[in-house]
C-alpha cells in the first residue's frame, strides 16, 4: 500500500524501482480526492498535472542516478510556509488570496532535495491554537475515532493539525509543521505520528509567516523517528536571510536512530506530574520509563522548578511578538483590504474583518502587555521568568542527557470542547511550551492507545543542538512501543 509507507521505505522502493514517483504521487492524489472532503486536512491541493510533473522529474533523477534525499517523496506543506505561485493563507481570511512571489527557505530546501509537494495543509489561523478550530477554512477532523463512537469528531490538535491528520490518514508520507509552543508535538501526539521541534535556529524562518519570532521553529511530522531525522536533514541549514539561523553543520540525523542508548541518563521532571494528570497519560509515561530502563538508560529524578510559569510566560511573550509581527497586515501592501474614508479607517476595518477572534484577542493582549505603564509589569517580567525557565533546563542537562515527559495532558478531545475558556484551551500546551521557551529540541513519539482507542505520545527533550541524542532515545521508545495502529479513517482502509 503506497500510502502507508514511511519516507525511508518509499525512498528505498523508489531507488530499487519497485514503483515510480508518479505512481506514488498518484496514489496520494487519489487518497486526497477520496478522504480530504471529510477530513479537511488540506486547504489547497496542487493541480494534478503539477504534482505529476514534479514526480516525473524525480523519476528522471532516479534514472540518472542523481536523486536527492527526499526525491520523489510526496509530502504536505503547512499553509504557513510561503510557496512561490501557490496560494498561502495561514488559514486566515486576511491572506485568503495571497500568492507569494517567493519560496520559503525550508520549502526551497525540500524542493532542492527532490520532495514532491501535494498541497498546503490546514492549521489554526496564523498558527494560534491547539485544536485547529480557528481556521478560516473550517476545522480539520482527526482521522482517529473513539472506540465504539464513529460520530464524535475529534480535533487533530494544533496548530499543525492539517499536517498531522494528513500524515496519519495516508494523505501524505510526511508533512512540514511549525512549532511556537507545541504546534508540531501536540498534534503529532493527538494523531499518533512523530513530530520533531528542532533547536531554535536549526531551520530558517525566512518565508514562514511569522507568529512569535523568538519561538517559531519549523520541523518534520512523519510516521517514524528515522523519517523525522531524514526530513530534518533536508529542511535544516544555515540561511543568511534569517538573522537567528544557526551556522552549525547539519549532521546525518537519521543515523542517530538505532544507536544504542545504553548508559544515557534520562531525567524525569517532578513538576510534570501535574495534579489531575489523567491515569492513562501517567501509565503511558511510567511505561516509557520502564522501556528506557530496559534499554539500559539510567533514569534520574530532576526538578524544573519554574515549569508552572511556562504557560503564563508564553501567553505574554507570544502575544507581544504576535502583535508586532501582525502589524504588517494593513490592507495596503498585501492581503485583504476593506475600504473606509480615512487611512486609519482602512486599517481598522481591514483588521477587524480579516482576523478571526482568537487572533484579534492575541493581538490585543500583546498590545496591552507592551503598552506604556504595563510593559515592565508584564513583558519585562515575562522575559526575566523566561531566563529562569531556560536556566532550569540548563541545570537539568548538567546531570542528564534528555528529559522524558508526556507530550500532552490528554488524548485528542472533541471538536467544540474547551472552546469557552481560553485558559482551558491553553492548558493543552502545558508540557510542550517550556521547551519552546528555552529553545531546546523536543520530539513526540506515539507509544500506545488509551482505553478509548486514541493515541498517546511521549516527549523527549534534549540539549540545544543535540537532536541526535533526542532521536536515539526516540528510536528506542519507538522500537519498544511497536506502535503500528492506524486510524479508522485511512487511505488504506475500505478502499
Amino acid at each position, binding site marked *: 500500500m503506497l500510502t502507508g509507507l514511511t519516507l525511508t521505505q518509499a525512498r528505498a522502493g523508489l531507488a530499487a524501482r519497485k514503483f515510480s514517483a508518479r505512481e506514488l504521487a498518484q496514489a496520494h492524489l487519489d487518497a486526497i480526492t477520496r478522504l480530504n472532503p471529510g477530513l479537511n486536512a488540506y486547504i489547497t491541493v496542487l493541480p494534478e498535472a503539477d504534482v505529476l510533473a514534479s514526480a516525473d522529474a524525480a523519476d528522471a533523477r532516479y534514472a540518472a542516478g542523481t536523486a536527492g534525499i527526499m526525491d520523489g517523496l510526496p509530502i504536505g506543506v503547512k499553509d504557513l510556509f510561503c510557496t512561490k505561485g501557490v496560494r498561502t493563507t495561514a488559514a486566515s481570511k486576511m491572506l485568503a488570496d495571497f500568492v507569494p512571489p517567493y519560496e520559503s527557505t525550508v520549502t526551497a530546501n525540500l524542493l532542492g532535495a527532490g520532495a514532491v509537494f501535494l498541497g498546503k495543509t490546514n492549521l489554526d489561523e496564523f498558527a494560534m491554537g491547539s485544536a485547529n478550530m480557528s481556521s478560516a477554512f473550517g476545522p480539520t477532523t482527526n482521522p482517529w475515532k473513539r472506540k465504539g463512537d464513529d460520530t464524535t469528531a475529534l480535533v487533530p490538535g494544533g496548530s499543525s493539525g492539517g499536517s498531522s491528520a494528513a500524515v496519519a490518514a495516508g494523505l501524505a508520507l510526511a508533512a512540514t509543521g511549525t512549532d511556537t509552543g507545541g504546534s508540531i508535538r501536540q498534534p503529532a501526539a493527538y494523531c499518533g505520528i512523530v513530530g520533531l521541534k528542532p533547536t531554535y*535556529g536549526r531551520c530558517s524562518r525566512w518565508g514562514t509567516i511569522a507568529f512569535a519570532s523568538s519561538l517559531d521553529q519549523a520541523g518534520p511530522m512523519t510516521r517514524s523517528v528515522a523519517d523525522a531525522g531524514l526530513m530534518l536533514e533536508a529542511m535544516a541549514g544555515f540561511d543568511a536571510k534569517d538573522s537567528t539561523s*544557526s551556522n552549525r553543520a547539519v549532521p546525518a540525523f537519521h543515523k542517530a536512530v538505532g544507536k544504542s542508548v545504553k548508559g544515557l541518563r534520562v531525567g524525569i521532571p517532578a513538576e510534570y506530574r501535574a495534579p489531575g494528570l489523567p491515569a492513562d497519560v501517567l501509565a503511558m509515561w511510567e511505561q516509557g520509563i520502564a522501556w528506557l530502563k530496559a534499554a539500559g538508560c539510567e533514569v534520574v529524578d530532576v526538578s524544573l522548578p519554574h515549569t508552572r510559569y511556562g504557560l503564563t510566560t508564553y501567553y505574554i511573550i507570544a502575544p507581544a511578538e504576535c502583535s508586532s509581527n501582525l502589524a504588517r497586515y494593513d490592507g495596503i501592501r498585501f492581503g485583504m483590504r476593506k475600504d473606509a474614508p480615512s487611512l486609519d479607517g482602512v486599517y481598522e476595518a481591514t483588521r477587524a474583518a480579516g482576523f478571526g477572534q482568537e487572533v484579534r484577542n492575541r493581538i490585543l493582549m500583546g498590545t496591552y502587555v507592551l503598552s506604556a505603564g504595563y510593559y515592565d509589569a508584564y513583558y519585562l517580567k515575562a522575559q526575566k521568568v523566561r531566563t529562569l525557565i531556560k536556566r532550569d533546563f540548563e541545570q537539568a542537562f548538567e546531570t542528564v542527557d534528555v528529559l522524558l515527559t508526556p507530550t500532552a495532558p490528554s488524548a485528542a478531545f472533541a471538536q467544540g470542547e474547551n472552546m469557552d475558556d481560553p485558559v482551558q484551551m491553553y492548558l493543552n500546551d502545558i508540557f510542550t511550551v517550556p521547551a519552546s521557551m528555552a529553545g531546546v529540541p523536543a520530539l513526540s513519539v506515539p507509544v500506545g492507545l488509551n482505553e478509548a482507542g486514541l493515541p498517546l505520545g511521549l516527549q523527549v527533550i534534549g540539549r540545544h543542538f543535540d537532536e541526535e541524542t533526542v532521536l536515539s532515545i526516540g528510536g528506542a521508545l519507538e522500537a519498544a512501543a511497536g506502535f503500528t495502529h492506524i486510524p479508522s479513517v485511512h487511505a488504506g482502509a475500505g478502499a
Partner: protein
Amino acid sequence: MSLDLATTRRIAKLARIGLEENELEATRQKLNGILGWIDQLAEVDVTGVPPMVGTETETLRQREDKVTDGNCRDALLACAPETSGPFYTVPKVVE
C-alpha cells in the same frame, strides 16, 4: 490587574482593530480572564535576573553592506489589493 472598558477601547485603537461597541465588553471579559491567570507571575522573584531576549543560541552576525535583493517591484505590487500604476493606494491623508 483588571481591564476596564476604556482601556480595552484604547488598546483596540492602538492595535488598529475596529471593534464595535457591542464587541468591546465581550473582548474585555475574555482578556480579563487571561490576565487574571497571568497574574500568578507576580509571585516569582526575579531580582537580579536578566531578561531573555530571543533564545540566545547564536550571536547576531553582521553582513557586508551591499544590496542583496531588489528589482522586484512588479512582483510585490501584484500582491497588493489595490494599486495605481507603480504605486500602492491609500485614502487621501492630506486635506
